[in-house]
C-alpha cells in the first residue's frame, strides 16, 4: 500500500481507475480522513461501509472534488484518475465532475421538467448537436435509469412531482446522461422503500458494465448484494479493503468483524 511509484503500479494492474495515496482530509481542525490508500477498479462496484461519521461521504466527495465547495475542508495526498492527479493545478474541477458523476443520498431533482433534468448535463457540456440528438440522449439515459417506461408520457411534467424512488432513478439517469467514467453514489437508497431499492440495485449492477461505481451504504446486505469490492472505514481510517466475499466471510481486522456482526456501528 505504500508503493511510491504510482505510474508503474498502474501499468501492472491496468484496470485501476482511481488510485488514492495517503489522502488526509481536515475540516478546520477535525481530521476526518486519515492516511487512506485505495485502488478502485474499472467496471467494478466498490462499496464503502462503516459506522456513521467515519468519513465515507467525505472520502467519496474527494474523488470528484465536491469538497472544494466546502470552505473549511482541506485535502492532502494524491488521488489519481487514470494516472492523472485530480488535485493537480492544471485539472479543472468542473471538467473533472463531468467525468466523475455523483448521486446523492437524498434525491435532488431540479425543479424543472423530467426532460430538462436529464438534458441538463448534456446541454452544459455540449454533448448534443441538435434537438433530435438531445432527445435521443435523454431517452437513453432514462432507459438506463430504469424509469423510461414510467415517465415517457410525461417528460414535460416536473421532476419534483415524482415519488421518492422515481426521483432517485431520475437523478441516476441525470448523472448517466453526462456519460461519466465513474459514478459515485452516497447512500442512494437510504430514502427509498424496498421495491425502489431493489430497482436501484438492479440498475447499479447494469451500470458496472460501463462505469466504475462507488457506493456508500449502511446496509450490509446491500453491500454484499451489489459490490465486488468492499472498503471498511472506521473513525477516518480505511481499516480493510478487499473482495466483498472476503471482507464479509473472513475479515482480517477485529473492528471489521465487530461491525459486520453488528457489534459496532
Amino acid at each position, binding site marked *: 500500500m505504500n508503493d511510491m511509484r504510482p505510474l508503474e503500479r498502474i501499468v501492472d494492474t491496468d484496470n485501476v481507475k482511481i488510485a488514492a495515496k495517503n489522502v488526509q482530509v481536515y475540516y478546520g481542525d477535525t481530521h476526518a480522513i486519515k492516511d487512506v490508500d485505495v485502488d478502485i477498479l474499472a467496471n467494478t462496484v466498490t462499496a464503502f461501509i462503516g459506522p456513521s461519521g467515519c468519513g465515507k461521504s467525505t472520502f467519496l466527495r474527494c474523488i470528484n472534488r465536491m469538497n472544494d465547495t466546502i470552505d473549511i475542508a482541506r485535502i492532502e495526498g494524491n488521488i489519481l484518475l487514470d494516472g492523472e492527479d485530480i488535485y493537480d493545478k492544471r485539472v479543472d474541477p*468542473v471538467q473533472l*465532475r463531468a467525468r466523475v458523476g455523483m448521486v446523492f443520498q437524498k434525491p435532488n431533482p431540479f*425543479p424543472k421538467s423530467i426532460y430538462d433534468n436529464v438534458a441538463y*448535463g448534456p446541454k*452544459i457540456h455540449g454533448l448534443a448537436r441538435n434537438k433530435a440528438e438531445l432527445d435521443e440522449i435523454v431517452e437513453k439515459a432514462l432507459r438506463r435509469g430504469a424509469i423510461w417506461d414510467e415517465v415517457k408520457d410525461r417528460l414535460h411534467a416536473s421532476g419534483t412531482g415524482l415519488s421518492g424512488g422515481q426521483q432517485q432513478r431520475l437523478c441516476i439517469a441525470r448523472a448517466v446522461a453526462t456519460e461519466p467514467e465513474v459514478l459515485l453514489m452516497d447512500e442512494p437508497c437510504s430514502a427509498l422503500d424496498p421495491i425502489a431499492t431493489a430497482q436501484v440495485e438492479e440498475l447499479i449492477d447494469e451500470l458496472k458494465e460501463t462505469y466504475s461505481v462507488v457506493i456508500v451504504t449502511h446496509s450490509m446486505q446491500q453491500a454484499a448484494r451489489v459490490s465486488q469490492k468492499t472498503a471498511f472505514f472506521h473513525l477516518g481510517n480505511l481499516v480493510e479493503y478487499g473482495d466483498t466475499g472476503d471482507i464479509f466471510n473472513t475479515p482480517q481486522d477485529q473492528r471489521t468483524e465487530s461491525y459486520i456482526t453488528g457489534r459496532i456501528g
Partner: protein
Amino acid sequence: MPVFWILAIVLVLGAAGYVLGRARALSSAGDDYRSLHSLPSYYGWNAFILTVVPALLVLAAWMLIAPIVIDGMVSGLVDEGMQEGSNLSLLMSDVRRLAAGLDSAVSSGALSASEASGLVADNALAGRLMGLGISLGSSVTETTLAAAQRYRGLAAASQVWMAVVVIALAAGGLLLGLRRINPSFRARNAVETGLLALLILASSIAILTTLGIVLSMLFETINFFRQYPASEFFFSTTWSPDFRGNSELGILPLLWGTLYISLIALLVAVPVGLFAAIYLSEYAGPKMRAVAKPLIEVLAGIPTIVYGLFALITVGPALRDYFAQPLGLGNSSSSVMTAGLVMGIMLIPFVSSLSDDIINAVPQSMRDGSLGLGATPSETIRSVIIPAALPGIVGAVLLAASRAIGETMIVVLGAGAAAARLNEGLTEAINPFEAMTTVTVKIVSQLTGDTDFASPETLVAFALGLTLFVITLALNVLALYIVRKYREQYE
C-alpha cells in the same frame, strides 16, 4: 379619578388576584400540590386574567364611547340655540375647547370651581377667557357657554362612573376567580383560552384598522365622485387643479409619472440588488458576507428625505450638466431620471436582502446536484438557483415596486411637483429628463395649505389615495400569491 389611577388600582387588584389565587390553590390542595389539575401559578394567572381583562376592556370601551355619547347629548342643546348660518361642527368644537379650557383653568388654579361654573356670557367674557389662555374661534354666546358647562358636568360624571364601574368589575372578577379555585379546576386550560383571546384581539386590531382606513377613504372618495365625474378622473389626460373651480383632475398624468419613475427605480434596483444578493449568497466568504451584508442594509436605514436631498443637490444637477443639457433634452435638474435613480438606490437593499433570503432558501442539494454534473457556479446559478428562486424573487420585486409607487419625498425633491404634460406630444411625455410628479406628491399638495374639505380639489386626494391603495394592494396580493406558491415547491 384620572385614568392612570384607575389602571393602577386594576393592576394592583390583578396582582392581588395572582398572589391570592396561587395561595388559595396551594392551600386547597393540602400538603401535596401534585393533586392540583394545573401548576399553582396557573390558578394565580387565571385570577389575574379574570380581574384585569374585563375591567380593562370596559375601560377602553368607555373611553371610546363616552365622548361620542356626551357629544350627542350636548349637540342637541347647541342645535336648539343655533343661529342662522352657523355650522354645528364648528360650534361643537368651540364648546369642547371652552370646556377643556375651563377645566385646565380650574386645575391650574386660575379659576375656582365655583367661579368656573358661575360664569355668565357677557361681552367681557371672551376677553377674560383670553387672559386665562383660552382662545376661541368666535365670541362666547349664551348657548356655547351653557353647552360647555353641561359638557363639563357630563364629562365629570362619566369619569366618576367609569372609575366606579371599572373598579367594581375588577373586584368582582377577583372574587369570581378566587371562588372558582378548587383542585380539579382546569386553570391551565382557562389560561390557554385567555391567551388565545389576546392573540386574536391583536390580529383583529390590525385587520380592523386596515378596514377602517379603507372605509374612510371610500366615503371621501364617494363624496368626490358626487362632485366630479369619475370618467373625467380616470380618463382625462390633464391635471390642472384650480381652487376657484373649473379644475381638470385627470389621474392619468400622475399615474404615468408614478409608473415611469417606479420603472426607472426598478431598472436600477432589480439588477443591482439581485446581483449583490447572488454575490453575497453564492460567492462571498463568511467574512466578506459579515461585512458587506450589514453595509448594504445600512442603505435601508437612511430616511427617504435624506435620499431626497441627495437627489436635489447632487444627482439632479449632475444629470442636468452632464447628460440633459449636452444631449439637448432639457434644462431642469428635477427630472424623472433623478428621482428614479435615487429611488432605485433606496430600493437596492430591499431587493437584495429579500432575494438573498430566497436564494439561501434554495436547498444546498440543488447546488450539489448541479455542481456534481460538472456545471460551473455561474451555470448553476443561471440554470438552477435563479429558476428555483424565481417566484420568490418576483415577489421581492413586486414588494419593491409597491414601495416605489408609494414613495413621496424623493419624488418631490428629485422630480419636482409638476404633473406630466401628456398633451404636448410623445417626446415630452417620455423624456426622462423632464420634471414630472407622482400621485403621492399630488395627494400631499392637494391637502396642504388652506383647504376646504368639501371641494373636489381637496377630495380628489382621497380618490387618488384609494386608487394608489388598490394598485399597491393588487401588487402585494400578487407578490404574496407568488411567494406562497414558491414555498410549496420544496415540501
